[in-house]
């Protein structure tokens, strides 16, 4: 699998600072909406409002402090495949069971990790299912099923 490299430079710093600013805005706006109360009976929105304003100010400071030297090269192939693998594990676990969900998770790790070959992945998936069955289903009695029929 060819790597998908991205240089996270000043633009990434600024975008993340903007994300933090937006999060601060959400805290402040919703906080205002929940009600501020009185000084001797603080409402549920006062603390979030205060936090939101502080977060917005800190986000601006982070954006101001960002320098081009902060940039870092990142290979995103792990992110592009492993994250969908976990999401699919979650979607499959209830109705398809541990075996199918784990097989899909390990399958999605193949393009994310160059050294993981299909045969190795198959062996790993079998071992994980076996360990999962022994430890979690038999050992801890977790309400998981091997093949989905609960």
């Amino acid at each position: 699998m060819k790597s998908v490299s991205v240089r996270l430079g000043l633009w990434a710093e600024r975008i993340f600072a903007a994300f933090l600013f937006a999060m601060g805005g959400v805290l402040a706006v919703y906080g205002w909406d929940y009600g501020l109360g009185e000084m001797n009976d603080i409402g549920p929105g006062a603390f979030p409002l205060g936090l939101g304003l502080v977060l917005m100010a800190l986000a601006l400071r982070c954006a101001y402090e960002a320098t081009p030297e902060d940039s870092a090269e990142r290979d995103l192939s792990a992110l592009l495949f492993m994250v969908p693998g976990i999401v699919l594990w979650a979607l499959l676990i209830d109705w398809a069971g541990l075996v199918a969900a784990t097989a899909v998770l390990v399958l999605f790790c193949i393009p994310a990790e160059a050294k993981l070959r299909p045969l190795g992945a198959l062996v790993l998936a079998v071992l994980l299912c076996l360990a999962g069955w022994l430890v979690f289903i038999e050992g801890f009695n977790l309400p998981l099923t091997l093949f989905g029929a609960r």
Partner: protein
Amino acid sequence: MSVFHDLAMGFGIALQPTAILICFAGVLLGTFVGVLPGIGALAAISLCLPLTYYMLPVHGLILLAGIFYGAQYGSSTAAILLNIPGTPSAAATCLDGFPLSKKGRAGQALFVVTLASFFGGCVAIILLIVFAPPLARFALSFGAPEYFAVMLLGLIAASTASSGSAAKGLAMVVLGLGLGMVGTDVTSGTYRFTLGMVELTDGINLVALAMGLFGIAEVLTNLASSESAAPPARSFRLREMLPTRREAKDSVRPAIRGSLIGSAVGALPGTGPAIAAFLAYAIEKRVSRHPERFGTGVFEGIAAPEAANNASVQAAFIPTLCIGIPGDAVMAFMLGAMIIHGIVPGPQLISEQPEMFWGLVSSFWVGNVLLLLITLPLIGFWVRILSIPRQYLYPTILFLICVGVYSVNNNVFDVFVAVAFGLLGFVMNSLRYPVAPVLLGYILGPLIEENFRRTLFISNGDVTAFASSPVSIIFLALSVLALVWPLYSHRRALRRARSAEV
């Protein structure tokens, strides 16, 4: 009741076969994750939290604590053999550990750091036993303003004490506080930031948040960075690890100093084993007659930081257990674990649940002895762990995270939450935003808000109530200092850099 009576009761719990077995599992897993670079103790602790639901609370805490201090023992192995710190706290050990390895003294270095870690742990446990009960009695006088001030100091110190930008650290702690607001407001019953989702009415799941930020994010970050896999390291036999008399003598005083520094630093809010280790290293270099030899491979340079980092993790339990206020992210997670188990950490813990407190403290002795037994004789095994292929390790970790998060509430929503925080943690790691303050803020958020509102309620809205006692004044002053000092030093460093350019 005397301390000896309490300890006897504690050992009665810690020496039960089940407790020993659980402690052994904890320190073994801790050493494992400590040896492996890239997987932190917090990821392993959050992975194991769901398992503790099936145990007695004291056994659950023994397991989680064992992972934490076990990781400190294990982290020096990769630091000495490969110049890669297994955890951030072992970074100081790299400075002289790897040069010692290059000199052919790796076996002796591993021997010394194991004994230094053991010694540091023992010193801190003794201090915990001596100081915890009086501190808890003192903390009984704390009211809402004092709790608010202590928590404020912990949050500010944790975000500004770490390396890097203070603004980034503070932003992360505030983000964590905001995440702690999600759920039902305990005072008014208002649903806050739940986005209409029933799953969020009890707040964001602690395990999902921690596994996302520290488990998924670490796997993604390790795979995304260009660092290659660790090269193979050679194994040792116990006989060839024994240091010479001179090397042993050189290590004794640094280990004593490191233990005391680590114990003092560990008990402070906002610190952690990494700060303790670097401080011990810096002080050791300063008191040495030959500071120029530091960095070239001297035993003083590994004994002091290793004793300090292990002492600090044991001492970190002092504020967490006695006041109910964690000093760092791992302790915050331990606090969350206690609350999940129905234990209320704080001044009453020692008097109301003495079996819990003394059982846990006694298990530290058991754990440290077990670590001594499994670290040195099994050094060959730990060295081999370093060569586990990451292509099998990371999918296994992801599998364990998925099952662990799912098992907490048996719903997939928490897995999606973990994925979201995994992505957030990946971006934060990539842009050098510290992740730990988010967890600390998330756990302390509801507590600090509660004490903030209670202070104003009791004082009928008088804001001067926050500085109504000497304790709260001292902690508020320290908070201001912790906030201002990094900004001042950052500005001074910038000014120096500019004048150097001119």
